[in-house]
């Protein structure tokens, strides 16, 4: 079932065009990676899907309804957005932080149901023993799991992740990506993530969107999109793609 439909959006920052006539659809339970060089429009795309930015042309539909027709609080229950950077306020514990993800459901205070949901999600991301730890005492991998947990407690159908593996060591990268793929399969969440590592994109997604200067250069299954020609065209580097091992090696 289609949950996200991006219909011909063009987004401008002042006079600079950040996205140009972008079309694609995402199904429930699908993991879609957005790849492209810095400044190609990955973050802009994610922000436009979440309604943080408005397209000048075209529309984004979530669950059949145009994003800007949603009441903000209602949209927050369907779409979870994890930005590249979160201001980690000191003195917040993991529990406090993840609980703020339930804001769309809370009027004046968080209920027992909100707390139960937080504990359930912390268990899901294997972080229940971090509940009382302060955010500034967490390792990079733990923190990333907690940030994803915060987006998950709102029970979204769509999860937008902006470089979820940035600044993580290889072990944590794998851990976070496995978690993301598990969520998509088990909870039927549609995941759209911006990612730099092409091998990870190949292995962990059903669909890849390749962007350059705000235009979609290629869109489809990893083996069709991640070809040596496309990579050279978009990233201006030579690459060796092994479709059996599902790896992309950039040549020096």
């Amino acid at each position: 079932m289609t949950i996200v439909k991006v219909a011909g959006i063009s987004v401008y920052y002042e006079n600079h065009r950040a996205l140009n006539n972008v079309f694609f659809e995402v199904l429930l339970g699908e993991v879609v990676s957005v790849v492209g060089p810095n400044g190609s429009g990955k973050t802009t795309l994610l922000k436009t899907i979440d309604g943080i930015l408005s397209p000048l042309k075209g529309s984004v539909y979530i669950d059949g309804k145009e994003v800007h027709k949603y009441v903000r609080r209602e949209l927050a229950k369907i779409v979870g957005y994890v930005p590249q950077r979160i201001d980690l306020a000191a003195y917040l514990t993991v529990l406090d932080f993840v609980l703020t993800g339930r804001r769309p459901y809370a009027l004046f205070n968080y209920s027992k149901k909100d707390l139960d949901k937080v504990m359930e999600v912390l268990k899901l991301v294997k972080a229940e023993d971090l509940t009382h730890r302060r955010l500034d005492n967490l390792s990079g991998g733990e923190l990333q799991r907690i940030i994803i947990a915060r987006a998950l407690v709102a029970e979204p159908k769509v999860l937008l992740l902006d470089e979820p593996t940035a600044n993580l060591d290889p072990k944590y990268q794998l851990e976070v990506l496995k978690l993301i793929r598990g969520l998509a399969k088990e909870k039927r969440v549609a995941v759209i993530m911006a990612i730099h590592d092409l091998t990870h994109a190949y292995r962990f997604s059903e669909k890849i969107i390749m962007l350059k200067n705000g235009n979609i250069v290629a869109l489809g299954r990893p083996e069709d999109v991640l070809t040596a020609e496309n990579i050279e065209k978009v990233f201006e580097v030579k690459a060796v793609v092994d479709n059996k091992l599902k790896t992309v090696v950039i040549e020096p």
Partner: protein
Amino acid sequence: MSKASHKTIFSTRLSIIIFLSIALLLLIPITSSFGQYNITFIDVLKLILGYPLGGDELIVIWLRLRRILVGIIVGALLGGAGAVAQATFRNPLASPFTLGISQAAALGIAVALIIGYGGAISQWFLVFAKPYVLPIAAFLLAFTQAILVLLLAYRAGLSPYALVLSSLALSFVYQAILALLQYLVLNELQIATVVFWMFGDLGRAGNTELFILFLGSIPITLAYMIMHLDLDLLTLGDEVAYSSGINPKKSRFITTVIAALGSSLATSFVGVLAFLCLVAPHVARALVGGSHRYLLPASMLIGSILLLLSDTVARIVLTPRVLPVGIVLSFLGAPLLIIMLIRGAKQ
């Protein structure tokens, strides 16, 4: 970890808040027994419990109690406003006074002195509103300043950065006008009044002032508490706040107005006690963490306790002279901040 674990953390925070409340209640009779006129703890309890007392004792106890009650309300208003402002500006060094409220209020005092004491229209002014000329002028200018800052920052996107810059720009204007008035118009006595007013002193609030402070503090406290969910989100950044279903600009506008109202009300009656807004939330955060559901009440209670203790020291340290509490507060609060800084660095 089981479900019980989140209950433990919340009940620990609640216990700290209950402990602070009890400590504050106990401080009322304890601190009121200190002072030049000898009154015992028992006398104060007698008054509170409704026992008949001699006329002199009654007056002295009431004067002290009134001062203490003013301190509790002002401390709570400023402690809460500080916590709100630090989340709103996303900066642990911010306070509602970052908005330039103190300079604006001082200018209000200067203007009131010119038109209320000795100007051509002073006659009717003195008759109708003399005791309230200064507080009203201070409040009006302070709150107007906050609104002007918001309007100016609104044009620049209402980010924390825009708020700080527009506050700075406007407060320099107020300082310049105040300096000009002091240089050209005010006499020595009036200048001394402005300077003394800036010190911050609980003694100048009378019964009516206490009543107004009490009435004003109820809606402001409620407003602080209602905003606690949004304050948590504001500290996480605008994008996170927006994607969690709130409009960060709207929330920042509301929280700035609330913090400005609280601090302007307190400032207009007792003068500038800006340091309290800075130190109370820091102590509270170390005790109950950063979640505003607990941070706000804890910061208000600590604001009251700190102000009460400082005022007691101010009353007894140089007997028979009574120091303005603002001076003592800085002497007591600054080491507290430094200790926390060093402990934080060690951690």
